[in-house]
């Protein structure tokens, strides 16, 4: 049977050479300095998200901030002009639920900084643990994801998500908002038990006990805040202190909940506690849609590119979930879901919803302005508007479809280096292939 394998798709040497990215130095990607001159990109189709689509438009930005968008803009003298004819400009995509920078290699435990010990860790913040050299940062940017919320996990109160702008020498330069949102993992009333697990494990706290624990923690934290506000002298508690902006409704509480009972109970709790909540996960959110709409509680979907949980659900149960929520009037964002390693998949998570009925502009909103708004950074990113950060993509079409290319990204006005580890390996090993082909030809 030797010889069954045959190469039918010889690509031709010329094509290979042409398509290889320009050779660079050994450096994988270089961080660039802050924007130093005004830039105008002309002639492009600008997808502002919030202000419609501008054909043949110009976007003007300086000092990292968008100064003007329109069709007949006067370009200030000294501004560098870039021709964007035939190109599309989209805001940088935002992943509302990621572990980029705090998780490097899945099965290598020491490369994970996601789950701190204990049930209550509101004081931990993801940004200070972000490895600015993480390989995943480059690949995420290449896919069009320019802002990500790196998010701790584990326990009942997991810690603070940090908003990261994916360009900078250090985490400090990247951090847009250190304590952007508090994360709560809602207990599961129907925990799955595996065959090796004892059915009546008495050590495992019941659902009710876990909810009571969570509620008690919030009560103590609120009492702490009130005592401090009343000018009382208290012994300091880092955990309770970290909770103050939550009670002041300054930052949202992102509650991880998938089941209908979980979501319902989380909503009841949040209304009781008077919190700004966002549901994350939301697999069964459609069964709670009316209540979410009535209380204007948004959802961050984490698994649109997935098989349905239950055998009877349609094969497209997850794919069509955004369209069904949209029809029901629920506001939602779409996240990278799988989290850490695959923040670069965010565009596909949103794109699949389009194939299954979600209007394209809604899919785009779900990974831009909605994510920004729910997580409280819509004053800076999420759409292309004057006064917001110049964080955007130049593409050949919507970044949500793989048939289009993402040619260049700008982050806070900086024209970033689009090299990443995957392209670097391409360059290096295409060189090897070239050497081999020259030899055999």
């Amino acid at each position: 049977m030797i010889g069954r394998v045959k190469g039918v798709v010889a690509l031709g040497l010329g094509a290979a050479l042409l398509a290889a990215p320009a050779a660079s130095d050994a450096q994988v990607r270089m961080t660039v300095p802050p924007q130093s001159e005004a830039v105008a990109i002309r002639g492009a189709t600008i997808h502002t998200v919030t202000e419609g689509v501008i054909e043949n438009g110009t976007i003007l930005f300086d000092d990292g901030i968008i100064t003007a968008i329109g069709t007949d803009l006067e370009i200030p003298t000294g501004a560098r002009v870039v021709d964007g004819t035939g190109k599309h400009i989209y805001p940088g995509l935002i992943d509302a639920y990621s572990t980029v920078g705090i998780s490097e290699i899945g099965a290598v435990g020491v490369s994970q900084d996601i789950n701190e010990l204990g049930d209550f860790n509101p004081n931990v913040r993801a940004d200070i643990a972000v490895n600015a050299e993480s390989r995943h940062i480059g690949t995420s940017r290449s896919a069009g994801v320019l802002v990500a919320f790196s998010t701790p996990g584990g326990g009942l109160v997991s810690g603070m998500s940090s908003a990261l702008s994916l360009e900078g020498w250090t985490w400090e330069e990247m951090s847009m908002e250190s304590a952007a949102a508090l994360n709560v993992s809602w207990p599961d009333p129907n925990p799955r038990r595996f065959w090796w697990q004892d059915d009546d494990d008495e050590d495992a706290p019941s659902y009710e006990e876990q909810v009571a624990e969570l509620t008690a923690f919030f009560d103590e934290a609120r009492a702490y805040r009130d005592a401090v506000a009343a000018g009382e002298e208290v012994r300091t508690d880092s955990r309770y202190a970290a909770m103050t902006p939550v009670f002041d409704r300054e930052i949202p509480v992102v509650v991880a909940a998938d089941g209908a009972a979980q979501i319902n109970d989380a909503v009841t709790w949040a209304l009781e506690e008077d919190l700004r909540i966002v549901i994350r996960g939301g697999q069964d959110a459609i069964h709670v849609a009316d209540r979410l709409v009535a209380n204007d509680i948004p959802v961050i979907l984490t698994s649109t590119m997935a098989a349905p949980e239950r055998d009877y659900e349609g094969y497209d149960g997850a794919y069509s979930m955004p369209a069904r929520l949209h029809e029901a009037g629920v506001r939602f964002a779409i996240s990278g879901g799988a989290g850490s390693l695959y923040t670069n998949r965010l565009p596909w998570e949103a794109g699949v919803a389009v194939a299954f009925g979600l209007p394209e502009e809604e899919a785009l909103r779900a990974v831009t302005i909605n994510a920004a708004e729910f997580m409280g950074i819509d004053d800076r990113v999420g759409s292309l508007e004057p006064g917001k950060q110049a964080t955007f993509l130049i593409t050949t079409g919507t970044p949500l479809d793989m048939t289009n290319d993402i040619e260049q990204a700008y982050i806070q006005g900086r024209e970033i280096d689009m090299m990443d580890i995957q392209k670097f390996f391409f360059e290096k090993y295409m060189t090897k292939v070239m050497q081999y082909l020259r030899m055999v030809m």
Partner: protein
Amino acid sequence: MRPRLRTLLLALPLVGLLPEGAGAQQATRTQPVEGMRDNATGYHALVGARVVTAPGQVLDEATIVIRDGIIREVSEGSDAPAGARVWDVSGHTVYPGFIDAHADLGMDAVPEGGDVGPTHWNPQVRAWFSTTRNLQDDAERRAALRSQGFGTALVVPKQGIFRGTASVVNLGDAGVRGRVLRPDVAQSIGFQRSFQLGGSYPNSPMGTAALMKQTFMDADWYIRAWDAYESSGRALLPPETSEALAALEDAVQGGQPVFFETRSEEEYLRALDIAAEFGVDAWYRGNGQEYRILDVLSGRAEPLVVPLAFPDAPDVSDPEAVLNATLADLRHWYLAPASPGRLAETGVRFAITADGLTSLNDFLPNLRTAVARGLSPDAALAALTITPAEWLGLSRSHGTIEQGKVANLVVTEGDLFTEEATVRDVWVQGQVYGVTRAPEIDPRGTWRIASSDEWGFDAVLEIEGPLNRLRGTIEVAPGPTVTFTGASIDLASASVVATTGRLEVRFDAEPLGYQGSVLLVGSIRGDDFYGWTSLPNGADPTFTGSRTEPYAGPTRGAVAMDVPELDLPVIRPMMEYGRSSIPARPEAIVVRNATVWTQGPQGRLQNADLLIRDGVVAEVGVDLDAPGGAVEIDGTGKHVTPGLIDPHIHSGVSGVNESGFAIVPEVRMADVLTHNNIAMYRQLAGGLTTAMVKHGSANPIGGENVIVKMRWGALPEELRLDTETRTVKFALGENPKRRQNRYPDTRMGTQEIIRDHFLAARDYEREWQRWEATQEGIPPRRDLRMEAILDILDQELLISSHGYRADEFLALVRLAEEFGFRVQTLQHGVEAYKIAPELAESGVAAVVWSDWGAFKLEAYDATVYNARILMEAGVVTSLHSDNSEIASRMNWEAGKLLRTGLTEEQALSTVTIQAAQAIAIDDRVGSLEPGKDGDFVVWSGNPLSQFTRAEQTWLDGRRYFSLEEDAELREQIRRERSQLVQAILAAQDENGNGNQRMGSDR
């Protein structure tokens, strides 16, 4: 003489084997009597009963005469012969004693420290174990079986895979020497290993199947090897000694049945295959899923013995629980009790066993449920009597109530099959065993009792209900010192001390003005009552009275169906989206005016037509002539591609890894395919039509993979792609060295153990060549593992190797070259791009991910450009998923490659033609070229776009998926699920509580 473990008892003639009667026959026992002999007459007459002598044959008011364990006479209306002990069973029904053809008497516990002696290298092979030689007293289980009507059983050992021999015994209380009817009748075999027996191999269903095959072959070899040794005059060294292989001699020669215990429909299919392959006389112990494969079992699986272990209803206690109830579970709950009825209706002969029940007391209630759900009482009785009697070789002695047969009887109050009947006695070989014996004096009826004591009172006592569950009321009239107006009190408890007819009653004292309970005991003789009480105030008045009204008769409820009649079509698989038949194959199909991606020499054609004839691609072109009656599909605006191919998934099998040994190419994934696999339907919905289902990566040399087509609705054996291509899993890197205390622990060792087995296979081959040339010495044994490795070396079994890093792949490629052959594919190949030229030179295909990586250390250098670099170097390059979910969207996986600079057709080729080439099935699938299988997908747009979805998936010229049919199926599922949930709620209401089983009266 080589060790022969066959017991001589097997040779005993059946006729003439007299069972031990009540008075033991001195002539047939060897043990001397100590002390005084016990010689009851053994002469009995049961009079007045309705006697069901055989299914469908009833005598009224009949007399059965028993002498020395044998039925002497059965006749209607005759008197008891003088001298016989008379048993008045008027008002009762007598059936032939039941026979359980697969009983577990729990006698094969593994001794502490494990089995000893030259048994078998694998502790799961216990074929040497004999239930006759290990017959132990387990009086409790025997009594429990008797209480359900059984007098005879085939006791089956349960430990291990090869479990030992089953023997027919009577279920009386005679000593172990008095119970065996047929020793060691059949070998028992099962698909589940016993953990307490130890050993690491097999730990998967495919390993189990492989062990079964190898062991049957070894047993055959063992005979020849010992014959060679003996006939040489013992001038050779003997072959190894194995009691287990010796014990299998009759089984492999077809002289002794092999009783397969199955736990699922898939295990039926596995057992049928193995039985056919080795020509053994197979018997089958079923599992409650028979109704799913009636077509398979019919005419093929006989003898068949089915249990009555019906499933609990799925939890539907709240809306979220309902949300989680699957149609598969709901259907199984509804249909399992109807399974025996359907078997009978289909004409499949079967026996019924009490095996598999959580409690033996569930047996009769479940039997009535089966009858209420369609099994005729005659068929039920046949399945418990004449059918097992015939199979066990007991037709002349057991199964019916006839003159000359063994006196095994069941005496019941009520119809055993249709009413809440009570078993009164069970007779085993002429010995009576009381189960729920009526008291000599029946206390049921209405009694008027009175007390002359100052603390006493007058009362009317009513006792009713079955004798083992008496109930009643007591109506108390005001007495001399009791100052209440009278009360009717339900009895808290009522029972009869059976032997003396003493009635014990207890009731609440509060209506009498006391705190506590009243205890009332009455001795009954005829219609006279004499009793006394204990009152909470310490008084103990006596009572006398008489029966004023006799017992009106049994108040047994008839057992009826307690679920609504639902019309659930037979579907396959028996779960969500299952279909009632394989889709039709039109003679011709033509897709008009589409963008056709042929992925062959014709390239991609715009506004083109695709013609399929007789399930095969006929032509692609413009304005094709189609035969009249061809199914026309309007492809305007649509794209058509070949069905997608994924050369690496793990769904649709009952197991993935056989990790018991490092080297296991003898195990076959084909043995464990399952059609109960929802992933298959979803994969079809994503345009996937062909996949290679792979063994796991726990072993340097793993098992043989299987290539399947997504023929949703077919049985496992029908899923396989018709191809000669065979591939085997290898695994390199982290996974195969991860298992504790098993060589290898390093990549170095991985390479060496593979190499050592390659060498071993060549040695094995030479040994056979030498023997075939000379026929001298002990014949070598066939070794499935070595034969598989020889196939690898001979390129008959193509290597498909899991791995990540460049170094490990390069090492394997070079090792194969050292042995003069080629590795077919590398799989995963996260670093394949680093050795693209080497792979191209060696002709190795690469099966890689689009962009998955970094989930483990060896996957860290992943790049989406992997496929591009490989293709540039001329390596055949395919994508794969290694994931049942991702396999349902391979078009998007290919789409991701567009950004690496590949053209659209090149990108799609990684999930079509190149995928087929990589696993050497491109003669059948992978492109739309004339002569290839009619597998194609109609897409809503460019298949590589994230915004596109599959609209129709065709396979073999049959439409296996379409959006329209999908919508219909969803509606059907919605309807069935809600009907079934309502049926559970109705059944629970019927049973008055949360009792989630059907038709039970426990």
